[in-house]
């Protein structure tokens, strides 16, 4: 039998399957992938219809619904399906039960992708006259079948493993190190899977979900107004023909960028700063002239006539990848973080004392984003903190002290477990004294937890 982790890793490296054709609403993901596997099993051979079905999943909640979907799909192929649960030796149990086949299925979410993968072993279980002297022998060789399909939110929810008792809420690890100071981060689908965008004083980078640099652009700074504290806003979303938009403080307009090989090329420009984007929504704003701060202006569309709502200035705005109660958050220069609903109106308590490196991310997959932020203290080292404002226990995680300053953040699913992760930029000094930024992955993916 193949080990499940190795199998899932191999599947992760494979190209993604095609999306279902447009038209009728797609069937539930479990139904679709079960049907695919049943087709791979094929019709009963020699009228041998008795099939024992054994389903094993890493996430316990996934096993029963998947078993139901598979039983239904296999029945449509003509099998008489007998679910098998609990037996230590599944094959022996199938034989003892007089079944013709044992279909042993292992299932799990594909790391790094929003997909579910099924791998089945079709094992003959009937007794053969010619094998009387070797009761354990199989009449025909077993064969391997597999199927993979896009995982809908329900499947992602079921496929998410439960955190073991005593396990920490999250883990923080360095995804990659970038030379220089990262000013802004964005996480999202840039067209070919999870991607990270990082804006720096002299460049914008597009990275893969695992932190490898894929493309870059160095802007022409001619005509830019000087800004003492360099700053930028950055978003990955639908910007009309391209999925990445960036504006540096002092630059006249936002650049909309498309990837061409290892370069990011300007395909359009916008007269508003892209503050964040997620779940089909985009938020635009503007820098206060001559500064790296944002005006109190949050607009769902580019509106050159829009005016700030107040004199308040903002450090940044974040979006939850899948919306929810707290779809957006705006951090003021008074260090108060205002949680906003999908309509950009206040939707929760104002959190005092958030740092400028912050993100909204539904780490635990409960449908409500947590606030992942730094620790804005004047003397202590920085720390990653995870706040769950909707619960009675706001601080659910605090990291060890970090050697550097958390100055940028973004949320999105980078590990492919279906729940958000947060990415924070920790700015520090490299061995040569030059500024470097460690991109820290903050995740509750159980595969990442110790």
């Amino acid at each position, binding site marked *: 039998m193949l080990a499940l982790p190795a199998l899932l890793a191999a599947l992760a490296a494979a190209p993604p399957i095609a999306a279902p054709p447009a038209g009728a609403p797609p069937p539930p993901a479990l139904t679709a992938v079960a049907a695919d596997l049943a087709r791979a099993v094929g019709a009963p051979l020699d009228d041998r219809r008795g099939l024992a079905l054994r389903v094993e999943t890493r996430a316990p909640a996934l096993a029963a619904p998947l078993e139901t979907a598979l039983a239904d799909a296999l029945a449509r192929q003509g099998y008489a399906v007998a679910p098998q649960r609990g037996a230590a030796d599944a094959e022996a149990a199938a034989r003892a039960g007089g079944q013709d086949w044992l279909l042993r299925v292992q299932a799990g979410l594909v790391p790094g992708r929003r997909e579910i993968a099924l791998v089945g072993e079709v094992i003959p279980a009937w007794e053969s006259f010619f094998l009387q002297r070797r009761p354990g022998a199989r009449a025909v060789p077993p064969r391997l079948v597999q199927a993979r399909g896009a995982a809908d939110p329900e499947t992602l929810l079921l496929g998410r493993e439960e955190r073991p008792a005593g396990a920490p809420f999250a883990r923080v690890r360095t995804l990659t190190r970038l030379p220089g100071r990262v000013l802004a981060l964005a996480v999202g689908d840039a067209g070919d899977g999870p991607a990270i965008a990082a804006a720096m004083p002299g460049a914008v980078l597009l990275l893969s979900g695992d932190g490898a640099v894929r493309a870059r652009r160095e802007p022409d700074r001619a005509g830019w107004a000087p800004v003492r504290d360099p700053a930028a806003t950055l978003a990955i979303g639908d910007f009309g023909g391209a999925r990445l938009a960036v504006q540096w403080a002092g630059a006249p307009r936002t650049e909309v960028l498309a990837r061409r090989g290892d370069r990011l090329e300007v395909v359009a420009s916008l007269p508003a700063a892209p503050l964040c984007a997620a779940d089909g929504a985009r938020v635009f704003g503007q820098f206060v002239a001559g500064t790296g701060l944002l005006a109190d202006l949050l607009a769902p569309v580019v509106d050159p006539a829009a005016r700030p709502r107040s004199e308040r200035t903002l450090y940044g705005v974040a979006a939850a990848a899948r919306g929810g109660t707290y779809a957006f958050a705006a951090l003021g220069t008074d260090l108060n973080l205002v949680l906003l609903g999908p309509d950009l109106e206040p939707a929760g308590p104002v959190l005092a004392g958030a740092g400028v490196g912050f993100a909204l991310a539904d780490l635990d997959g409960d449908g409500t984003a947590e606030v992942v932020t730094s620790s804005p203290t004047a003397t202590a080292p920085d720390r990653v903190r995870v706040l769950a404002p909707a619960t009675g226990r706001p601080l659910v995680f605090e990291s060890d002290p970090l050697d*550097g300053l958390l100055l940028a953040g973004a949320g999105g699913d980078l590990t492919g477990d279906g729940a958000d992760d947060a990415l924070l930029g920790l700015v520090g000094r490299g061995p040569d004294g030059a500024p470097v930024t460690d991109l820290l992955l903050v995740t509750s993916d159980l595969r990442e937890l110790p």
Partner: protein
Amino acid sequence: MPTLPVNEPEPAPSPERSPGLAILVLVAALTLPLPAAAGVRPAYGGEVRVALPAAPRITDPALATDPGDLLLVRAIHATPLELDADGRLSPGLLEEVPAPEAGGRAFRLRLRAGLRFSDGTPIAASDVAAAFVRLLAREGPAPNAWIALPVLGAEAFQAGRAATLAGVQVLSDRELLVTLASAMPEWPWALAAPAAAVVSRGGAGAGPFVLQGLDGAGARLAANGLHWRGRPFADRLTVKGADPRAAARALSGGDLELVLRPEAVPGATATAPSPPLLATYAVVNWRRLGSGAERVRRVLGALDRAELGKLYARGPSAPTSTLVPQPVLAGPAAAPASPSAPGAPGIPGQARLVLLAAADVPDQRALAERLQVKLFDAGVRAAAELEGGGRFAARLAAEDFDVALVPVQVTALAPALAGGQVALATRGPGAARRAMTELAGLPAAAAAPRAERLTRTLDLVPLFSTGVRASAGPALQGLRIRADGAIDLGDLWLLRREGP
């Protein structure tokens, strides 16, 4: 604690470090336990209030020499070059650090594009050329002429024998060529000194702030949105004088954000010392003392300078043994005391020696009184006379003293330039030229003995150099003391914490 400044300067083309600079950088880098808010970027707005031992009075870069005046000059004016966090030269108004040409005799200075003074007028290469000319004022004092003295034709221009400064050629709106009289590859270090700042014809500066008012109480400034690095973080800046008690009271009461004094303010949230670059020299007036001068010189030379600094300097101090302050040279850390002078009768024909000292520079009064005692012990009666700013300079220029204690705030970190600055302040332009010529191009190891010989030749008695301590209130952020002791006031900002 991470002390990474969140504002990164423009990339610099890695110029050579100044000889002896390492020690300064070490001092500046290792002793900065100042607030650096974790996870917080600078905020704009508000007023930063700074207290000095005395209110600043002079805003003209060509004339300012006191530490307080230099602080104000840096707030109002911009220099062609700056120092980065590692103590290296970095671009300021110039788009890059000029590389030496013609064997270290010529430098091509190219301005950034789009520069403007705070009054909106464009900054041109001719303004930089005018700054050099201003330093060589033919009439009145020219305390910062050391920057332009090495330029070809400076002597003839200053003496009125030439109508223009021959070594400065304006090539275009943004470029000029500076040719020196002799090779001095380290000359660009002078361009980071506040006296090298560029001033418009109307008197406007290009620094982070614009002067709004200056009187006996201090200076009031507003943000300059046209500064080449962008507007400063604070909207307003006030710089005033305050005695130690008043400063401490104001800082603890939240009425000040920063106090720069020799001594730390008790109860301040954070303090950090600046490099000791305010060097004090005893100048002996041979013309007035005649044969008694040698006796006075030996008494002063026998002083334990380390002890002097320890006892009479309230701030960080270091003994000085040559005309180049010890921190600029990577030489021996402590200056040896000369053999004690034997007891002897008083100076013939000199009833009471006049010991001139600056009244408004910290520690000078205490030092003068100590020297009075030492001279008396050696049989020389002295009367300390303390004079403020202009009067002190005038008496110094007129040689109206027997012994003068001359404090020099050294602002260039290359030994040749520091030596020239000290020699100009104590012995005049001829001595400055000689010092710079002799020290030019020398590495630190070779500069130290040469500086020692020059000190004897110029008949200076180096005493000690001191720094100040920056005491900050809890809200102040962005404070960084450069290797030359300067603070970019435009980088200061206030941490705002308000309840939801």
